């Protein structure tokens, strides 16, 4: 093997750490997707664009002179309302329709959002500098930006907070009831319409947090939403709906895969590798499921 990464073991450590920290961030987005997929039975193609919009909110704060890290608090609040209105405007009309309709409708939303962000924030690649510095490990052979550690920490914080909220609060219980059986929940007095709106809002808020973190750790561009959608979709398929530890683990797995693909195949194939992985996972899943098919005897 003639790859640099196999010659230098420290690069592997570097890639692994990067991958795991990045993966935690992906897992947060995937958690939002799993939530709304499980509750509303909608696949949201605009998920990644919600993330990018959240990132631009943090970036705007950075331009205004506020430290972008505050974005992790401000961005979800704004994004919650964005999600809420998006639900009232479009999503409520596709909730109990065919899944393909929801895919196409959210695809339309994604296109609109991309273009509007392009108008407002410009088509340049931007980054909000957090100036957190870097941590050097192992005799300075591994560099770890502190912003990445910060982002992983905040992601875990939000995820744990949300899990507790879903378990304990009234709305959380209503959401879980609706996910189990919307009709029964309705009969028992749950305002499912409200629950759906709140779910979509919470999903958007999670995207907002993730976006603010991405603004600090990675880069923003109006048209890079779709890869985030696909990543979260992949994580959800592998982990299943509503299995949080599995979401976290497969998120980290994806992060690792990406970092290693980056080193081995080259950066220009990174996004391509992500999409190919999606295809492979789906095909693998299809063959695995087809073995389990039951026949009448």
């Amino acid at each position, binding site marked *: 093997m003639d790859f640099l990464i196999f010659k230098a073991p420290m690069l592997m450590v570097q890639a692994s750490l990067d991958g795991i920290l990045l993966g935690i961030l992906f897992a947060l987005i995937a958690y939002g997707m799993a939530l709304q997929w499980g509750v509303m039975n909608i696949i949201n193609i605009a998920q990644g664009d919600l993330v990018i919009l959240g990132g631009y909110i943090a970036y705007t704060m950075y331009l205004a002179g506020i430290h972008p890290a505050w974005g992790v608090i401000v961005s979800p609040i704004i994004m919650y309302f964005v999600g809420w209105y998006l639900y009232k405007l479009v999503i409520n009309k596709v909730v109990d329709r065919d899944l393909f309709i929801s895919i196409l409708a959210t695809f339309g939303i994604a296109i*609109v959002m991309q273009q509007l962000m392009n108008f407002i924030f410009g088509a340049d690649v931007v980054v909000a500098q957090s100036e957190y510095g870097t941590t050097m490990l192992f005799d300075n052979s591994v560099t770890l930006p502190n912003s990445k550690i910060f982002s992983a920490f905040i992601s875990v914080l939000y995820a744990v907070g949300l899990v507790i909220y879903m378990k304990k609060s009234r709305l959380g219980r209503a959401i879980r009831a609706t996910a189990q059986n919307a009709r029964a929940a309705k009969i028992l007095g749950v305002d499912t319409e409200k629950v759906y709106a709140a779910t979509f809002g919470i999903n958007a808020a999670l995207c907002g947090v993730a976006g603010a973190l991405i603004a600090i750790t990675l880069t923003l561009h109006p048209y890079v939403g779709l890869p985030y959608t696909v990543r979260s979709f992949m994580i959800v398929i592998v982990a299943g709906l509503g299995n949080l530890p599995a979401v976290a683990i497969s998120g980290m797995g994806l992060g690792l895969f990406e970092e290693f693909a980056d080193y081995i195949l080259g950066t220009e194939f990174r996004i391509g590798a992500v999409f190919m992985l999606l295809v492979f996972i789906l095909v693998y899943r299809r063959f695995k499921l087809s073995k389990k098919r039951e026949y009448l005897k």
Partner: protein
Amino acid sequence: MNKVKQKDLILYSGLIILGLAAPYLFSAFKVQLTYLCVLIVLAMTWNLQGGEMGYNTFGNILFYGLGMYLTASVQVGMFFPLAEWTESGGEKTFVHTTAQYFQGIGVGLLVSAIIPALVAGAIGYAILGLRGHYFAICTLGLGIAAGEIAGGIEIIGAGQGFTTPPFPAEIVDNEARGKFFYFLSFALLIGTFVFVKYIYGSRFKLILNAIRDNEDKAEAMGIQTMKYKITGWMCSAFFCGLAGGIMGGLIGYIDSTDVAFDGREMGVFMVLMAILGGKGTLWGPVIGATLFHFFKEGLWTLILGWQYVALGVLIVVIVIYFPEGLMGWLREKYPERFGEVIDEKDRKAQVELK
């Protein structure tokens, strides 16, 4: 029965005459007309997949882009070293003679029809086993992955794009170039229409519909669904590849993500056009594509910069309020015209049930 056939004959001959005369009548719009033909072909082949078979694909763009690259590569590679061509940006170092150009594009189109069909056959078994939205997302991923990967391959120009051979120097005349590509695409359109029309009268179409309505039941009835699904996809891929090849020659420049594997434009357009016209009808995609093209060409320049916003809003509106499309709406309104007989009692009973 005879009367209906006569009416059809008049309609078809009228349309063919219109098609043949169009480049002379509207000679300023030859490129647009070529686009229209290609769009109709794409919408019709998508309809075969999404409308008849119920497999909503975003991935037909894969075959379109593949056809585009294949035609151009064959056209160049037959006479000149491909790598040097892409490196030098094309026409500066090598010049096709007239005979070479037409030979190249002929062979290229042949290849670009066959290879995508074979690719569809090869990946069909794996991909078409997916159902519903998993299939939709998987094909979306395939289309984008193809674009990203093509953007990293040096020999076909990587990120900087691939200049297709320019029209032969002896016929510099733009008129001839426009006519050549128009008639090529028109021939493709007629070929596709005849093929799809043939399918609509065959058992194959009924099998595809059975797969759409209930695949498990179709299988239980003894239909080898996988075989038919793959065949259906191969048919789509065949025509998509040809359409891509023609478009590559017309545009003259291939970029991996913006022209060839252009999921954001063509990939969405074909779905939208088929849905706008009405999924699962013969004429729906034709009408949908024509309407969409007129809408696009008419509005695009007026709302410059906002066209993608308009496109996105259009998708949302069509999908939410108009999922049956134009033909579906007409069918609801005038069922007699479609040969449906409605029992008045039955209708009343249905209304009461609601």
